[in-house]
């Protein structure tokens, strides 16, 4: 017997989730985020002090100083000089773009920093024809990469005054400060490696020869 289509039993259909409002929200969010996204990470290299000029009067602290790093950069050579006694520490023939040359520069800077860990200031005298990209490479080597906590300048000064109050000589104070800086550096590294989950043996191995990071980050360009 023929029956109307409406009388036949219909298979029950599951309710479908209406995705349209969700899609609307997602589209709006995406448009908003697209306008505010920063795909390129941009940073800065600071030179907070003004262009270098000879100080009219030296402070007692500056008079006691025996070392100030000055770097002469040209397209022929790079020279590391102690500007206080004009002694040339090292000279390299420039070979821009050569990894070995960059490594030599890095090693020399690290060596100088290990000898003078409390020193952060560097004066850069650049020849006018040096390309900016190459100069930034030198700044990178001077500033270093790791930024583990070291004794801040204010803390250094405070400690220096304390040691002077105890009657220590300037050379002794520098040695004590160097050791304390290395110890602080070691403590910082141990904490970092523990957070990374390294074993005690690995940590001991890595911190046995501790180098000072956070190198010369007070950059002054010579006028």
């Amino acid at each position: 017997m023929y029956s109307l289509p409406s009388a036949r039993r219909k298979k029950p259909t599951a309710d479908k989730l209406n995705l349209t409002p969700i899609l609307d929200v997602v589209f709006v969010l995406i448009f908003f985020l697209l306008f505010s996204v920063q795909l390129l990470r941009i940073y800065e290299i600071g030179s907070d002090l003004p262009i270098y000029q000879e100080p009219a009067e030296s402070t007692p602290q500056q008079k006691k100083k025996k070392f100030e790093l000055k770097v002469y950069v040209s397209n022929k050579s790079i020279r590391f000089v102690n500007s206080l006694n004009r002694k040339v520490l090292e000279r390299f023939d420039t070979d821009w773009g050569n990894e070995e040359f960059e490594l030599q520069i890095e090693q020399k800077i690290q060596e100088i920093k290990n000898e003078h860990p409390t020193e952060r200031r560097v004066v850069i005298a650049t020849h006018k024809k040096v390309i900016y990209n190459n100069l930034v490479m030198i700044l990178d080597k001077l500033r270093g990469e790791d930024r583990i906590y070291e004794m801040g300048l204010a803390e250094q000064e405070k400690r220096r005054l304390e040691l002077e109050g105890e009657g220590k000589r300037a050379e002794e104070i520098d040695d004590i400060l160097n050791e304390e800086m290395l110890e602080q550096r070691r403590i910082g590294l141990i904490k970092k490696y523990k957070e990374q989950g390294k074993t005690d043996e690995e940590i001991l191995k890595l911190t046995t020869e501790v180098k000072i990071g956070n190198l010369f980050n007070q950059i002054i360009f010579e006028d």
Partner: protein
Amino acid sequence: MANKRFIRNRTRRGNAEPFELEMSSLLDILVILLVFLLKNYSVDEFALKINKGISIPDSISKTLTRKGVTIQMSKDFEVFIEEKLITTLENDGAWTDEQDVLIKNELLALKENTEQIEMQSDKASGFNGIINLIMDRELSYEHIDKIMDISADSGYEQFKFIVIES
């Protein structure tokens, strides 16, 4: 016979279901895109805009940028201050006194503007002396030095060389 078939098919045509777009896969893609964009989202209101044609050097520096006046110089010796073209050096980058004055005046005007706003409102951030130097990587140091000299003369003594993550 044909008449009966016609009646049967007519009912099926009348009850045809509307075409439904399958959106779940589209939603999957959009969610992944959303996650990616959320990850790169920056809440910092200060965003540097680098002009087209300027390729800044890359660096290992991880110091974040701070708000300040922006001065840009392309490899074609076009000088922009706050994205406004101020001057273009001629003859392979030779500087003239007029160009010095143009740049200096613009910087001084910006400084004065900031100081005036600071006087009118307690909440305004004052003049901080920061100048963000966005220089093309191929420029020689003499141009960088010149820009720094002019900036220092105009009262901007905190130089920030803008670099890109290497």
